[in-house]
């Protein structure tokens, strides 16, 4: 006798669809209703955003108001304010270049080939220098533009990147101090971290911007922008320190013992054994913290800086484009989305890359 083994038939696409959504009359009804709602919403959205929208500035605001769809002409007319804020009109190419410099620097420092001390220092040094010279001017024949005039996307990126650049090393220092063997050091650090974490970011920004100048000697005050950045970096580092500490707790004790037994010094153990593994554990939470910080840059508006959201308000807030706020916010949301989404995709890439050693 010949045995014939028959595999259970795998359902085809259509059959699968039928089983999932149209198995009973009630299910069929619900599925059809949901489908109708989805089609309706998507059609409305597309109609508003594309088919009935106005894209050119030729007709001015009047043509826009007459149209049924979105008024993208407001972006065409006001994109410079959104991206560059109050930065002088003739100099805005500098702000654009500065944005590109920051983005290029960030992208480069995300590439594993640049992860050596010298290369990363070179990338950051060049990027930060370029940004500062381009934005501030006063040299190489570039007219001087004070920090109070910086704004828009350029300012948002600057605050975000400097917050992370200062806050991240600070967070690692705090996390290391918190696990110190000396109780008075670990307790004090814990107190500082918990203290900063229990204050709202707005109050910290306000304190650094407005109150600090009265408390500090003149030479330490510096420009308001840098005080605000320092405040936001401090806030970032308090949260990130706890994330790093959590990551460190996930590294088995034997790892450090093995490194000790090999004669490695404290800093070698921290730098080569403990932190790489701790950061791998802490990566998802770290990316989360970066995303939150990016979006929290919009809070600097309360101490008088026109980052991208505030610049957007200014773009529709005056005169003839007053009605087109939805379009402006949609545009800004797109910009936030591009940055935050690439950040989280990069996080996913890192997780894949770092799990090479597991399995």
């Amino acid at each position, binding site marked *: 006798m010949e045995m014939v083994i028959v595999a259970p038939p795998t359902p085809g696409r259509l059959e699968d669809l039928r089983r999932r959504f149209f198995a009973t009359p009630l299910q069929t009804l619900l599925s059809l209703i949901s489908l109708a709602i989805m089609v309706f919403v998507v059609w409305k959205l597309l109609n508003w955003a594309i088919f009935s929208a106005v894209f050119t500035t030729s007709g001015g605001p009047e043509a826009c108001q007459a149209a049924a769809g979105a008024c993208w002409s407001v972006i065409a007319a006001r994109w410079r304010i959104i991206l560059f804020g109050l930065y002088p009109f003739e100099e805005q190419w500098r702000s654009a270049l500065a944005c590109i410099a920051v983005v290029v620097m960030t992208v480069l420092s995300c590439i594993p080939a640049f992860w050596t001390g010298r290369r990363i220092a070179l990338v950051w040094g060049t990027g930060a220098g370029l940004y500062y010279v381009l934005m501030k001017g006063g040299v190489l024949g570039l007219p001087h533009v004070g920090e109070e005039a910086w704004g828009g996307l350029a300012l948002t990126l600057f605050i975000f990147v400097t917050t992370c650049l200062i806050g991240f090393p600070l967070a690692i220092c705090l996390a290391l101090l918190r696990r110190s063997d000396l109780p008075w050091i670990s307790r004090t650090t814990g107190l500082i971290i918990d203290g900063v974490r229990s204050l709202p970011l707005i109050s910290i920004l306000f304190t650094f911007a407005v109150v600090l100048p009265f408390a500090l000697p003149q030479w330490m005050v510096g420009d308001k922008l840098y005080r605000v950045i320092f405040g936001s970096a401090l806030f970032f580092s308090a949260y990130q320190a706890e994330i790093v500490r959590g990551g460190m707790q996930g590294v*088995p004790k*034997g*790892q450090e*013992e*093995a*490194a*000790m*037994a*090999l*004669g*490695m*010094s404290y800093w*070698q153990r921290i730098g*080569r*054994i403990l932190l*790489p*593994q701790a950061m*791998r554990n802490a990566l998802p939470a770290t990316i989360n913290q970066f995303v939150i910080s990016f979006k929290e840059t919009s809070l600097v508006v309360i101490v008088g800086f026109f980052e991208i959201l505030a610049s957007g308000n200014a773009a529709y807030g005056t005169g003839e484009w007053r009605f087109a706020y939805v379009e402006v916010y949609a545009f800004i949301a797109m910009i936030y989305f591009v940055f935050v989404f690439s950040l989280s995709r990069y996080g996913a890439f890192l997780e894949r890359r*770092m799990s*090479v*050693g*597991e*399995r």
Partner: protein
Amino acid sequence: MNSTQSPGAAVHIEDLDKYYGSFHALRKINLCVQRGEKVVVCGPSGSGKSTMIRCINRLEQHDGGRITVLGTELNDDVGNIDGIRREVGMVFQHFNLFPHMSVLENCMIAPMMVRKRPRAEAEATARGYLEKVRIPEQAMKFPGQLSGGQQQRVAIARALCMQPQLMLFDEPTSALDPEMIAEVLDVMVTLASEGMTMICVTHEMGFARRVADRVVFMDGGEIVEEAPPAEFFTSCRSERTRQFLSQVLGH
């Protein structure tokens, strides 16, 4: 055997005391290990044997007595501690390989960072020792991709790459599946036959019989008995030792 100070001693422990809080983990331990000597330390769990060898490279800090390793006294002097750790290799029960580095990098990192060897030299040394522990073909893999026995052999190679004068083994086969114990013990036997000074905490009595110059039995934080293996296994003096041996050898 003797426990008196001699200039050639690799490890000399005098009146060692160690407390965990109020728990007296080691009580007045005296032990002297000569260069080239192989000492096996055994005893029931909680007897302090691991604690004792962890004191030798200061993974545990001792509370009383003196420990002299390779002529240097272990005290709070960080330079002394680092100097001793450079010359003393250690193999752990749970391997403790660095999971984020390849096998080769595991073996290269300490010679490069601690001994400041150039990369090419460190790599040549590492490949040499991986050959010696019979896994040269695994050099580019990560520890997580190896079996327990292979990982432990990498850990031995990693310690040897520092070219230590003394090797400490802290229950190197206790976490291994039975079929992998032999491959690790083989490497240790080879090492012993080449004249390495070794202190092994282990329950492998066959290994003790084969390579040990001396077997030390600990219980309750004390050294109860120490003797050459032939004597130790046939005519031990203490009741506790006899009981332990009957449990270990009984099956």
